[in-house]
């Protein structure tokens, strides 16, 4: 536990001591802010729904950009050899890095509360979908982060890590968009596996444990895979 905490602190510091965190947050807010404000006044509704449904799209390329460095860089510079020869478990390293990336993502998401406040001041904001949407964003974000960290653990090249992460996330995102081409027997399975399907249900304000369990289990699965991939040096 102490190890996870040390690695977490170190990772978070390295995000905020370098331009990474600031660029990530700025660009994220630029995109989401544009989507929030561009039709907010046109629609004349006090809702953050559009912004919240666009953010998962931004996440597809944004999250692997946060995580691409996490393990690939350590492999490239050789520092991974230091880390894994210290009295730490491989999984501690993965978890420390995961929670640091999650913290950065949550900070970025929290900044968008500005939109919520704006909408709330201008009209009567519907609390349920807003809360559900934010919960969904955090769960969705952590799933993508875990996938991104797994991608980063498979290579020592950050660009490759980004592309692998992007590809996997994109597939999970697209699963429920291609249902019409699929045989009917597959539809419900694919729908269940789709990250966006579960997000949409949360963003409607329906907080269903099935959705939460889906995200948590996919996150855990990706993190375990990342741990295994880090251990692959021993095979």
């Amino acid at each position, binding site marked *: 536990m102490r190890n996870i905490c*040390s690695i977490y*602190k170190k990772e978070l510091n390295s995000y905020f001591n370098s331009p990474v965190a600031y660029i990530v947050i700025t660009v994220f807010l630029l995109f989401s802010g544009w989507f929030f404000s561009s039709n907010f006044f046109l629609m004349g509704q006090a809702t953050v729904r559009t912004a919240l449904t666009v953010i998962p799209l931004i996440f597809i390329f944004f999250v692997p950009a946060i995580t691409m460095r996490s393990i690939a860089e350590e492999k490239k510079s050789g520092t991974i*050899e230091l880390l894994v*020869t*210290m*009295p730490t478990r491989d999984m501690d390293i993965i978890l420390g890095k995961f929670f640091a990336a999650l913290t950065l993502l949550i900070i970025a998401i929290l900044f968008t509360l500005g939109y919520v406040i704006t909408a709330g001041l201008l009209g009567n904001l519907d609390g349920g979908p807003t809360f559900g949407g934010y919960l969904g964003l955090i769960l969705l974000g952590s799933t993508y982060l875990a996938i991104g960290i797994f991608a980063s653990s498979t290579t020592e090249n950050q660009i490759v890590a980004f592309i692998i992460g992007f590809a996997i996330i994109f597939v999970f995102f697209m699963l429920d968009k291609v249902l019409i081409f699929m045989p009917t027997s597959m539809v419900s399975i694919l729908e269940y596996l789709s990250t966006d399907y579960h997000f949409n249900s949360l963003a409607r304000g329906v907080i269903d444990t099935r959705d939460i369990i889906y995200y948590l289990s996919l996150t855990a699965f990706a993190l375990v895979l990342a741990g295994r991939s880090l251990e692959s040096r021993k095979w």
Partner: protein
Amino acid sequence: MIDVKNLSKSYGETLAVDNISFEVQKGEILGFLGPNGAGKTTTMKILTCFMPPTSGDVTIDGLPIWQDSLEIRQKIGYLPEQNPLYHDMSVLDYLRFVAELRRIPKESVKSRIKYIVEVCGLKEVITRIIGELSKGYRQRVGLAQAMIHDPQILILDEPTSGLDPNQIVEIRNLIRELGKEKTVILSTHILSEVQATCNRAIIVNEGEIVADGALADLQSTFHGLDKINLEIKAPENGCAEKLRAIDYVKQVTEKEAADELHQYVVEVEKGHDLREQIFDLSVREGWKLLELHQESTSLEDVFRQLTRG
């Protein structure tokens, strides 16, 4: 303390370490010598629990390395080859980070860092970012990192690479000092380093141990030929012939000849000191002796003899 038995490691088809066995006692400074690609780094990576061997056993303090990995890793300080560091951290942050991972109790972290900074001469750069430091300072940070938790075993992969001569002397002194109470294994291809710091050397070549023993033993076991370097001033050219006529002389090679100056290397069978005979010969022949000195087999010769094809 460290017991390696029949250790082998192969990467796919290539065999990097081939069935090596050795033991290291407490208080020993072991030099791990070998040409590039001999398997030194691979062996070290196995000892530090970075990766498992393909076959063979390693026990440290009687504990098998793969079962009590965390326990063992805590006992080892490791400076990997190339000395990887986090270039975006300051020296102090980095040492604090390592101290935490090394499970140094919170209350003694400060005093340990203070001590190690003192020992490694890092005081002036403590707040600097590691990426901005010179190579020598980075090497010291790497050493500080390896020693911060006062480990019983230090494994150093080319500890003095990139240091200037003064620093090299300092680091060697430090290693010798540490070696009094701890076990140190250092790998290097710099032979003088082994001579200056180690009391025992293992020479590996192509994944196998070709020699293992105290330095003095190694030098006497692998006797080759003693060499006498000779410079004389003589009018004639037939000196080499006359030198060859002395008993036990194996070979005489002329290194340089200019006017009347001749330089020879006389190779003599081990254990015979021919300097007197050579002196007498020059007196008889009326040569003027400018230089006469004998070299015994150096570790370098042993090394070359053992590791060349």
